[in-house]
């Protein structure tokens, strides 16, 4: 990528960082902080999609504690959506799992953000082991995914105006697929079950 573009994006994210911290000191600015954080995440996603399309995106799996991982994610979104209940269920998670912490965090952030925006009152984050795969699940109690989203399950977004979800889901799918082990690839699954359910399966 062009160095100038990269420098500008870098600069914008620095400014957003300062803005987020300033807003964080106020008790009445959750929505504003939310906008700043979301804008920054969109930039990160865009950068990663560019890297992915140039086949420069690679994963570095290492040992991650899924409990800690989800707890940190939840802490962030509790702050951004203080009226929602964010529960974590890691009762059936392995003691440690292997994945690329930073990339999966970004992929899941998008899912959690969408869930928090659609939820009526609750979002549930869960991790468990199923058929030798780690399943990371984000479920909300909102209206569920629209049919169109369920159909294309994270295909490349048709247009830039698809309100964010398209790009995020596409990237989540790519990140999942980059996790490979012994011929098995990661994947994502979307379904509606009392709300939207996002699942990431990692080998």
């Amino acid at each position, binding site marked *: 990528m062009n160095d100038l573009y*990269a420098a500008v*994006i*870098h600069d914008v*994210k*620095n400014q*957003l*960082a*300062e*803005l*987020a*911290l*300033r807003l*964080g*000191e*106020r*008790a*009445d600015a959750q929505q504003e*902080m939310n906008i*700043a*954080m979301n804008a*920054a995440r969109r930039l*990160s996603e865009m*950068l*990663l999609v560019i*890297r992915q399309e140039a086949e420069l995106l*690679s994963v*570095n*799996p*290492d*040992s991650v*504690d899924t*409990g*800690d991982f989800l*707890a*940190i994610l*939840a*802490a*962030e979104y*509790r*702050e*951004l959506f203080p009226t929602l209940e964010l529960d974590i269920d890691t009762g059936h998670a392995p*003691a*440690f799992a*292997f994945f690329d912490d*930073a990339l999966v965090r*970004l992929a899941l952030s998008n899912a959690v953000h969408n869930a928090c925006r659609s939820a009526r009152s609750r979002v549930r984050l869960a991790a468990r082991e199923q058929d030798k795969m780690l399943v990371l699940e984000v479920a909300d109690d909102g209206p569920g995914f629209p049919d169109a989203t369920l159909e294309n399950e994270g295909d490349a977004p048709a247009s830039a105006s698809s309100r964010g979800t398209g790009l995020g889901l596409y990237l989540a799918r790519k990140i999942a697929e980059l996790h490979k*082990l012994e011929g098995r690839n990661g994947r994502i699954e979307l379904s509606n079950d009392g709300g939207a359910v996002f699942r990431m399966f990692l080998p």
Partner: protein
Amino acid sequence: MKYAQRLSAATTIASIRIEYRELLTDRPRVRRVRIVFNRRKITLSNISKFADKWVLVIDDMEGMRSQLRMSLTNSGFAKLHIVANIREALERMASNRYDVVLCDYSLGDSTDGQQFLEHLRTNDLISRNTIFVMITAEQAYEKVVAASECAPDDYLLKPFTAGQFNARLEKLLERQEYFAGIDKAADAKDWARVIAECDKALPARNKYFVELCKTKAAALMHSNRLQEAANLYREVLALRPIGWARLGLARALAMQGKKDEAQQIAREILADSPQFMAAYDFLGGQLASSGEKKAALEVLQKARAVSPGTMNRIRELSTLAVSAGQPELAESVMRQALQKHKYSPVRQVNDYAILSKALTNQGKADEALSVVADARKDFRDEHSQIILAATESVAHRAAGNDELAEAALAKAMAGDINALPAETVTAIADACFALGKEDEANKLLRHAIQNNPEDETIRSKVHDVLIAAGKEITEANAMIEDSTQEVIRTNNDGVRKAESGQFDEAVELLCEAANRLPNNLQIVSNAALVIALALVKNGNNPQMLAQCLRYRDLLVKKSPDYPKIAQIDSQLRLLQPARSSQ
């Protein structure tokens, strides 16, 4: 204080929120009390947890500095130092032990956060137990940095919220506490204790299991228990083919002499993840040490294309380029790096020495001399002066100023050679070769080898100097081997003499060697032991006892768990029962 001052009759507390969170126990505990007034939040959470932790923040941007100060204070941190650059950071770190270091990745145009971390780790300026968090605005950097040799404990991707930051820090502090004993042993380079502590913790197979394996394997490598290290890396690889475990296995194999297998693994890692910087460095080093300098250069050049890299790689690359007959490359790489790191503490005097050498080898002796003059301004300590004098000598020689060359070399050799670090000694040897003083050069190199018997870096450095002086690879290897054998013979002779009761001869032989080779712990420990044995047999002698204790202290200082210390002490106790109670 600020909040208290603002509190007036008109201000009402808008809400008090108490958050419950379960932590390991079933009993809910109050973790966070949030008071909101004047539309500002004060979080009283973690006050007990964070209040006594020393934190250092390094950020070049004024706005971020003040925001981080505010956020950290609000989160309950009370002991904060906030600085704008790494020079100030190093000053703070010299006088203060920090629990947490938060460092921005990009620190203006100069040395970046990753280069700073590498500098801290290579020079043992930071405890293993200090949490180092890299703050970065770019996902891309993170990938490159993550796969390098010294990874920080965590990354915070900008922007982040205070809640996210606190949650991460809580986890990191939990880890810090869990690893406290292990990290302390590692700081003391007490590898036996690191291994023992890991062995105690491993059976729980908890969330730290893999990291414990990594720590233990590194300690096994340090203890030269290569087969066990290789086995442990294989155990981790059976769980998952993680990059660091693959590279660890390659290292262990290389040190066991299985070079082909090691190189093969490194190439496979790079095929899978071209951003795994440590694998380039390893592969480059392997190729260089087996004489394949061109191939080594290619690998390091490829690494540079992925990430411009830290000073360690620049050093490797330019040293290699000089010895592979590509001084132009060395010059351009090193000049660029020194320009970037102008005024930065990550520079070393040797960087200027390499640049000067690269210039000399291109026939630009005048420029080489001006590089030395530049370096003199920044590196005023005694060892640097010696290295620069040696470097200057080579440049003068190339310029045809033989008298000046001799004078500079004489200055370099004026001090006590035994007390110099091996790097300095090899620099002087290099100059000796350039001035045609083969005997002196060989003597210096033998000394460097014998005084650092286990040190592979020194061996390869000596090897480089010999090759640069025009020796064949076989000749260089023979010289290194011969030097090693000579000191082993001296040691065995001394021990044999002591065993057959010839204590005076044994003491004389080993003490002479120990004084000459204070870094060779086998020699030093045997000298101490033989004196102790002689004292037990022949009766006390205060002068000899003092000498014995001097060797013993040297030993304890360099390697506190050196096995022979116990043996020396038990002899000393026989001699003077009162000592044991001290």
